[in-house]
């Protein structure tokens, strides 16, 4: 059946069912500009993502249509990148088509979507939605005491854009089963089995996990996943085994909250899993960019975080983390200490101060230190302002004897609920960024990025966001997922609609 006929049938169904609900959401992102030092120049491109869903009683049909227009037509695409039906209620549900699912805490399998995020890779220069789904079937049962999942599908390898053949984007087939049972009021245990077939090679995996709510507001979770192969024993933590171990505990007492996590991952890059990285996900610009990206091929470590809330509303947050990698006998240790104090001056004014110290030999960044302040002030008539000032310095001894310095200053003026305008300035003396690879010379002058943003809410259904200027790229983490954002200079307009 052609796609056109399928859509017509969907609309007819909608028209015929008075209690049915058809909804859309649309995201249009238009860019006019350049990636610095990269040709072709002055590109005018547009990306659009339309999400459709139709719900009638226990049935839901859905589709995602993505398109991208580029001056070089070979990079254009117009595709239904997701479609499917879901039949069921809050207890039992069957899905055929594209779906998102997780086994345990994602050591074996986790699919996700980062809504509103558009991804572009410098190699392809094609923008597409940021999601990693499975295409297949899912059967799920959930109750207060039991949860069962059975799935079969092809996970998306989302580094490839939709212009790449679907066989390359979904190279493997996974089949999995998971069961978790509440064995007592505050205890549950579970396990999962998963097999992955890729290019006629079969790999089998299992995981077991336990979750407990203990007295004195203590919560525990622990999971061990491993590849099932004859030469590997059960619960084998040795350097040669393919395994992933994760454990967490948290505790609250009055105004105090604490969490502690540990990890030991080895040879566990499955391309469809997402083990917790145990690295602080920062909201500050210079710290978010400096994040340590997890290497499930070989990484162990821990993370601890504490919160303390004072009566007046002030909050103190402390975080410490460590990650050890060992590749080909070279051992590197990432360490980070972070402290933030939010001081509430009055009902309308608060200030956050932070300090961070880290050591990241993996990125050749040593003695990295950062400080900053975030001032938030509410004014009369729903006006508000935010001032964010950040500074970071580190040694990159392999390239320069001078300390590298990064600065970020942002100011936002907003009037609820409709309007906001902001400006962001960044400066860096990092030799990796100062040099223009397109020129013969080696530039050493500091680089600047200055950009302005505008946000406007037309009504509950339409939102407009615009950016003009230069935007600094680099690693970024959103919703726990880290990826690379490209530098950009020019105009970007984004219009989101819901209906």
């Amino acid at each position: 059946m052609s796609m056109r006929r399928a859509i017509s049938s969907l609309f007819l169904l909608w028209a015929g069912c008075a209690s049915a609900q058809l909804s859309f959401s649309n995201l249009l992102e238009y860019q006019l500009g350049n990636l610095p030092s990269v040709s072709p120049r002055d590109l005018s491109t547009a990306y659009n993502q339309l999400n459709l869903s139709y719900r009638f009683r226990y049935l839901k049909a859905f589709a995602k249509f993505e398109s991208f227009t580029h001056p070089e037509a070979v990079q254009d695409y117009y595709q239904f990148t997701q479609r499917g039906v879901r039949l069921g209620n809050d207890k039992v549900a069957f899905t055929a088509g594209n779906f998102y699912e997780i086994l345990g805490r994602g050591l074996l399998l986790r699919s996700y979507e980062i809504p509103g995020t558009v991804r572009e890779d410098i190699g392809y220069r094609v923008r597409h939605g940021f999601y990693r789904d499975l295409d297949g079937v899912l059967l799920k049962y959930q109750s207060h005491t039991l949860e069962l999942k059975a799935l079969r599908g092809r996970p998306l390898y989302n580094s490839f854009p939709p212009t790449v053949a679907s066989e390359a984007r979904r190279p493997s087939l996974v089949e999995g089963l998971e069961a978790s049972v509440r064995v007592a009021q505050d205890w549950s245990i579970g396990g999962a089995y998963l097999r992955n077939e890729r290019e006629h090679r079969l790999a089998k995996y299992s995981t077991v996990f336990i979750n407990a709510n203990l007295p004195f507001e203590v919560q525990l979770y622990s999971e061990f996943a491993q590849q099932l192969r004859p030469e590997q024993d059960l619960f084998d933590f040795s350097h040669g085994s393919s395994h992933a171990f994760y454990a967490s505990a948290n505790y609250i007492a009055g105004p105090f909250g604490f969490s502690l996590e540990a990890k030991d991952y080895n040879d566990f890059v499955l391309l469809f899993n997402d083990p917790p990285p145990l690295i602080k996900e920062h909201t500050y610009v210079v710290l978010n960019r400096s994040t340590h990206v997890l290497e499930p091929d070989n990484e162990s470590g821990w993370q601890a975080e504490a919160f303390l809330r004072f009566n007046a509303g002030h909050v103190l947050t402390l975080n410490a983390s460590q990650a050890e990698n060992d590749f080909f006998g070279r051992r590197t240790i990432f360490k980070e200490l972070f402290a933030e104090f939010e001081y509430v001056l009055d009902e309308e004014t608060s200030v956050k101060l932070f300090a961070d110290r880290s050591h990241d030999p993996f990125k050749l960044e040593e003695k990295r230190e950062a400080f900053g302040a975030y001032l938030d002030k509410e004014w009369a008539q729903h006006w508000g302002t935010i001032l964010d000032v950040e500074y970071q310095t580190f040694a990159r001894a392999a390239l320069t004897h001078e300390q590298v310095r990064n600065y970020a200053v942002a100011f936002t003026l907003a009037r609820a609920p409709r309007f906001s305008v902001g400006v962001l300035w960044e400066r860096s003396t990092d030799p990796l960024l100062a040099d223009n690879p397109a020129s013969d010379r080696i530039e050493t002058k500091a680089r600047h990025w200055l950009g302005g943003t505008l946000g406007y809410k037309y009504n509950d259904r339409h939102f407009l966001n615009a950016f003009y200027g230069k935007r600094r790229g680099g690693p970024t983490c959103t919703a726990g997922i880290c990826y690379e954002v490209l530098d950009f200079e020019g105009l970007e307009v984004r219009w989101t609609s819901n209906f």
Partner: protein
Amino acid sequence: MTMIISLLVSFAFFISPAPSKVANFRLNDLESKSKTYAELKGKKVTVIDFWATWCKPCVRSIPKLVKLHEQYKDRGVQFIGVNVDGTRNLPKVKPMAHSLGIKYPVLLDVNNQVMTDLKVTQIPTIFIVNERDEIVAFHQGYRPGEEEILEKEIQKLLPQETERKQ
């Protein structure tokens, strides 16, 4: 072509639509107990707040929501926090919710399942839902002062004080 498609679709949206409905969903709460929307929703109004520990505007808005919850909890208004942190920050959610003073239920949408179903593209997103599960207002992002607008929207769905006394 992409522009034309999106403009057509977007202009079509200006037609005033019927309100969207929240379909019942099931998620685990902070105690890892399975809860449904139907079990938790308010008698008159339900306010659903999508938030995450790493989201600055979310963390700024929560103390305001906590105050509104205290103010309206005895008038048939229920607040539900839906945390969308995923697995990376899961152990921090309960301590942080506690440090932010959240007294209303918080559900964990680890898989972004409910977020995707309700087409949430930015956080925080706050839905105001009436007793028939219809979404009557929603707010994307948080700007200082937005809580006053939220309060007015909640009040519109509640019987007036005089009606209540009668």
